C-alpha cells in the first residue's frame, strides 16, 4: 500500500507531460492547419501542389516514424542536435512532430469546411456591399466552425491517445511513467498495475473532452 502514492505521484508527473504535449499540439496546429488549408486551395499552382504533396506525405506515413526522423536526423546526420539534450529536447522534437502531423489532418478538415459553404452565401454578402473579410468573419466563419466541430472533435480525442507515441523517443509521458514500474523504479519492479492506472487517466480526460466538445456541438445547433 505504500507503493500507491509513489505510483500516483509518478503517473501525475507523466500525465502533466502528456497534457503539455496535447495542448501545445492543438495551439500550434489549429492556425498552422489553416495556413496549409489556404495553401492547398491557392490559385497559385506551385503553392497548391506543394501543399498537397506535403499533406500527402505527412498523412501517408506514421506519426511515430516522423517523430523519430525529426528527433534523430539533425544529430545523427547533420551532426547538430538542434533539440538539445534531455527531456526538454525530446519535448520540443515531439511537439514539432505532432504540430506538423496534426496541422495536415486539420487542414483537410478546414478545407472541407470552407468548400462546403455554398457560394451563394458569399454572393449574398457581396451584393449587400460587404467586403471579403466582413463576409468571412460575419457570414462564413461560424457556418464553417459548425461543420468542422464534429470531425475536429474526433481528431482531438485521437490526439489524447496519440500523445503516447512520444514514448518512442523516450518522452516521459504517462505511459513511460507507468512502464517504468515494470522495469523497476522507486524500488518497485515487475508491477503491471500502474499501466492499468494510466487507463483511468486517459478515460477521464477523453471523457471530459467528449462532454465539452459535445456541448459545443449542441450550442451550434441553433441554426442549420
Amino acid at each position: 500500500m505504500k507503493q500507491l502514492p509513489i505510483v500516483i505521484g509518478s503517473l501525475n508527473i507523466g500525465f502533466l507531460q502528456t497534457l503539455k504535449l496535447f495542448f501545445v499540439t492543438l495551439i500550434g496546429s489549429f492556425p498552422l492547419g489553416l495556413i496549409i488549408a489556404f495553401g492547398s486551395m491557392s490559385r497559385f499552382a506551385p503553392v497548391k501542389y506543394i501543399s498537397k504533396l506535403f499533406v500527402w506525405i505527412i498523412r501517408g506515413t506514421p506519426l511515430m516514424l516522423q517523430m523519430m526522423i525529426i528527433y534523430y536526423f539533425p544529430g545523427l546526420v547533420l551532426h547538430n542536435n538542434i533539440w538539445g539534450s534531455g527531456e526538454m529536447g525530446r519535448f520540443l522534437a515531439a511537439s514539432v512532430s505532432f504540430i506538423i502531423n496534426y496541422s495536415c489532418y486539420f487542414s483537410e478538415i478546414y478545407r472541407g469546411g470552407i468548400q462546403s459553404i455554398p457560394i451563394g452565401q458569399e454572393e449574398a454578402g457581396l451584393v449587400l456591399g460587404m467586403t471579403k473579410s466582413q463576409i468571412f468573419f460575419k457570414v462564413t466563419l461560424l457556418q464553417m466552425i459548425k461543420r468542422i466541430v464534429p470531425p475536429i472533435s474526433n481528431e482531438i480525442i485521437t490526439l489524447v491517445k496519440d500523445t503516447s507515441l512520444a514514448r518512442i523517443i523516450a518522452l516521459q509521458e504517462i505511459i513511460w511513467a507507468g512502464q517504468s514500474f515494470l522495469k523497476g523504479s522507486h524500488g518497485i519492479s515487475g508491477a503491471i498495475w500502474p499501466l492499468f492506472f494510466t487507463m483511468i487517466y486517459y478515460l477521464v480526460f477523453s471523457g471530459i473532452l467528449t462532454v465539452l466538445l459535445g456541448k459545443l456541438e449542441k450550442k451550434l445547433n441553433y441554426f442549420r
Partner: protein
Amino acid sequence: MSILEVKNISKSFENTKVLKDINFTLEKGEVLSIIGSSGSGKTTLLRCLNFLERPDRGIIKVNDEILFNSEDPNTLKEAEIRKKRLHFGLVFQSFNLFPQYTALENVMLAKQLLAKQLPEYKTDKKDILNDIKNQAEELLIQMGLHDRMSNYPHQLSGGQCQRVAIARALALKPDILCFDEPTSALDPELTGEVLKVIKKLSEQNTTMIIVTHEMSFAKDVSNQVIFMDDGYVLECGKPSQIFDNPANERTRQFLSHYNQ
C-alpha cells in the same frame, strides 16, 4: 433621363458567348421583366448588373453615372465596384439567407456593417443602431412577417425565407432591385405570397428587374418586357405587345409553351 442604361453588354465563359450585345434602358419606378428559355443568359445578365460577373464589354449607367465601362480601367477596381453594387439589390432564386442569423438580423447585418464607416458612428452609435432596427422591423412587417422576426431561416417556409430575402435587399435602399426567378424554388402554393409582395412593391413605384417564368405575373406587373434568346435581346416592348402580339417567331414559339 433613364435610371438605368445598359449598353452593348457582352460576356463569355471560356469560349461560349453567353451575352451578345445587350442593350436596354429602364425608367425610374418602372418594372422590367426578362423572360426567355433556359440558358438564354438571364441570370448572367442580372449577375453582371450586380457585378458578380464582369462583362467583357459594355457600359452600365445608373442615374447618368457610369458605373462600369469596359474601356475605362478606373471603373473596374474592386473597391469601387463594392460601392457601386449598392445601386443594385439582388434577390436569389435560392434565397441565400444567412442561416446563423434571425430574420431580423439578416435584414440588419449589411446596414450595421456599413454604418460602422459613418463618421458619426462612434458618437451616435445607439441611435444609429436603433434606426437600423426600426427600419428592418418595418420592412419585415411590410413583408407580412411581423411574427417571424426572431425566427432562424430553417424555421421558416420557403415563401417566408424569400420575403425575408426581399426585405434584406430593400434595407439598403437600392436604386434597382433585381429578382432572379424569385419563386422557382417554391412550392406552387407559396408562390402567390411572394408575388403579392413584389406586386405591392411595384405599386409603391419600386424600380425592379424581374427574371421570371411566371408569364401571367410578368404581364400583370411589368411596364416593359424583354425576351432573351441565346444571349440576344430578341424583343423588347410593352407587356401587351410581347404577350399578345409578339413580332418575333422565337418569342411566339417560346410563349406557346405557356399558353397550353
